[in-house]
């Protein structure tokens, strides 16, 4: 059978030969020659289109590599469990339902815009509504400004829109009269949560009980199940053809990075025996150990990066006896100040009414002076309350450290305590990065995600009160497994080592994924051609 490649080659060379024999000495001959060229070109374009059609078909098939259906099944099972933060023993519904994030976001108003304020108010109202608590404008009585704003906001919220020009105009108007207006919203929300906290606690407990009943597991069982399912999902995803192909499609990986030569160099650098002399089974075992090393390195990296959090918890733990009753006292003080503020607001409302009453004409000047002075006095009180709330945020963490941390507390649990209190956690990270250009929200979120993922062996075993030589522990652990890893490497070249080990792990997963490397090479070549044609 003649190969189609040979056939085309022959076809092309024949045509070239025919053209070369054609005379071009006269105008008529040249014209005939050009006619033949055009005819051949037309045919060639048709052939090119057919070949291109096949190329695109293959490319489309490769880039639409399907995911292992078990990935979806596992994701479904995990989503059924829902948010495991709801079962967190360390915090309250205020943190679990995200009120702390809402209020913290409002506290950062200068970094945001009006939409951020309105989105957060809407979120706040949504959570209350979901828990059966319908708020009215009268509930927002921290100041007359917020009361006025919420009247309009709730009107719009209840009609399904909350971003009208009317609302924007009102915000502007109030904002210039009272630049601390957003703080009023934030604190009023905190007050409303506190007033309804028992209801949220009861409702959330009931909802959690339903989840446990449905899963036929207790709290620890369901959290364990969540981590086990996530372990399986991570394992499956890392070897999933779609996930792997996605890495190549998005240019995160290049097939040339995994060529035999560069992999040989890597194994030679990191493995003390000759990897290629080993049996297939032994090679797999080595690669699985590299997988474990990668997890350890990631844990160490996080430990190193966020050691300031551990140090902070250690300091608090050393002073835990001094935290006794501090939160209770602050909450009592807060309650007194808030009650007073609300009472003063009511009094001011009455004065405004009186000032319009003709029977009090004689006292009008005195009343008007009191009304004039009120916003300034009220704002002083609000600022004191805000300061108190920030202190309470820290006292909550202090109290949990006093309650839950002991000499057996692991580093992971220490992270978990701080991670359970978003505002405090944010402030801690923000303070540590005061001089860097770091996205604190991103930092905080990535640490939360890391802590809530499985495969935490090292930080789960090292105790908070210990000062271990972690680099020596890691190095010695993996030297036993013939992995070349010096303590100094970890201290000086952690990023490079992590990249190299990750490459070995990825290479192993690619081989186990049954992905066709020839398809990857093809896709990499075609992708720029397709992009050019678009």
């Amino acid at each position, binding site marked *: 059978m003649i190969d189609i*490649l040979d056939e085309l080659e022959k076809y*092309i060379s024949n045509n*070239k030969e025919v053209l070369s024999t054609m005379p071009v000495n006269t105008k008529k001959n040249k014209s005939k020659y050009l006619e033949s060229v055009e005819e051949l070109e037309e045919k*060639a374009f048709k052939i*090119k289109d*057919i*070949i291109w059609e096949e190329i695109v078909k*293959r490319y489309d098939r490769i880039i639409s590599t399907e995911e292992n259906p078990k990935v979806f099944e596992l994701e479904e099972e995990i989503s059924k469990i829902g948010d495991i933060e709801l079962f967190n023993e360390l915090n309250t519904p205020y943190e679990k339902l995200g009120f702390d994030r809402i209020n913290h976001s409002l506290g950062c108003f200068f970094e945001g815009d009006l939409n951020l304020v309105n989105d957060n108010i809407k979120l706040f109202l949504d959570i209350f509504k979901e828990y059966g608590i319908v708020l009215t404008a009268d509930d927002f009585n921290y100041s007359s400004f917020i009361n006025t704003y919420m009247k309009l906001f709730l009107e719009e919220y209840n009609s399904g829109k909350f971003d009208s020009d009317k609302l924007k105009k009102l915000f502007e108007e109030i904002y210039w009269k009272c630049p601390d207006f957003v703080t009023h919203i934030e604190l009023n929300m905190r007050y409303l949560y506190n007033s309804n906290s028992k209801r949220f606690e009861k409702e959330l407990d009931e909802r959690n009980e339903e989840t446990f009943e449905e899963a036929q597991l207790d709290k620890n069982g369901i959290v364990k199940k969540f981590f086990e399912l996530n372990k399986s999902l991570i394992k499956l995803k890392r070897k999933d053809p779609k996930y792997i192909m996605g890495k190549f499609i998005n240019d995160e990986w290049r097939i040339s990075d995994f060529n035999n030569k560069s992999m040989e160099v890597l194994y030679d650098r990191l493995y003390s025996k000759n990897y290629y002399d080993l049996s297939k089974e032994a090679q797999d075992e080595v690669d699985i150990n590299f997988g474990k090393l990668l997890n350890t390195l990631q844990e160490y990296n996080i430990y190193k990066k966020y050691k300031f959090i551990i140090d902070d918890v250690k300091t608090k733990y050393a002073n835990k006896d001094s935290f006794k009753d501090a939160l209770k006292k602050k909450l009592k003080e807060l309650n007194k100040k808030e009650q007073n503020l609300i009472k003063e607001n009511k009094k001011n409302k009455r004065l405004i009414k009186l000032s319009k009453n003709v029977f009090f004409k004689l006292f009008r000047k005195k009343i008007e002076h009191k009304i004039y002075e009120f916003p300034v006095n009220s704002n002083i009180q609000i600022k004191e309350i805000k300061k108190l709330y920030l202190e309470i945020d820290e006292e909550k963490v202090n109290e949990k450290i006093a309650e839950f941390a002991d000499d057996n507390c692991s580093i992971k649990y220490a992270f978990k305590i701080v991670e359970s209190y978003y505002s405090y956690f944010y402030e801690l990270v923000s303070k540590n990065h005061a001089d860097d250009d770091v996205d604190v929200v991103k930092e905080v979120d990535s640490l939360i995600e890391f802590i809530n993922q499985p495969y935490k062996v090292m930080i789960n075993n090292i105790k908070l009160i210990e000062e271990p030589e972690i680099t020596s522990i890691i190095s010695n652990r993996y030297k036993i497994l013939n992995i070349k890893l010096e303590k100094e490497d970890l201290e000086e070249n952690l990023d490079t080592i992590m990249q190299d080990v990750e490459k070995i792990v990825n290479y192993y997963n690619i081989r186990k994924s049954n992905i066709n490397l*020839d*398809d990857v090479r093809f896709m990499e070549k075609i992708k720029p051609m397709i992009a050019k044609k678009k």
Partner: protein
Amino acid sequence: MDKKIELTRMSNENLLKLYKDIEDYIAFLDKEKKEKGTEEK
């Protein structure tokens, strides 16, 4: 039609080679057209 079936059976490498050959051939024809066309004028 037969040729299309044959194409689907080709390896990725050969398919790309085929595409390159036809592209080179088209480039050759184009060059011929331009050169001889200019001479004709």
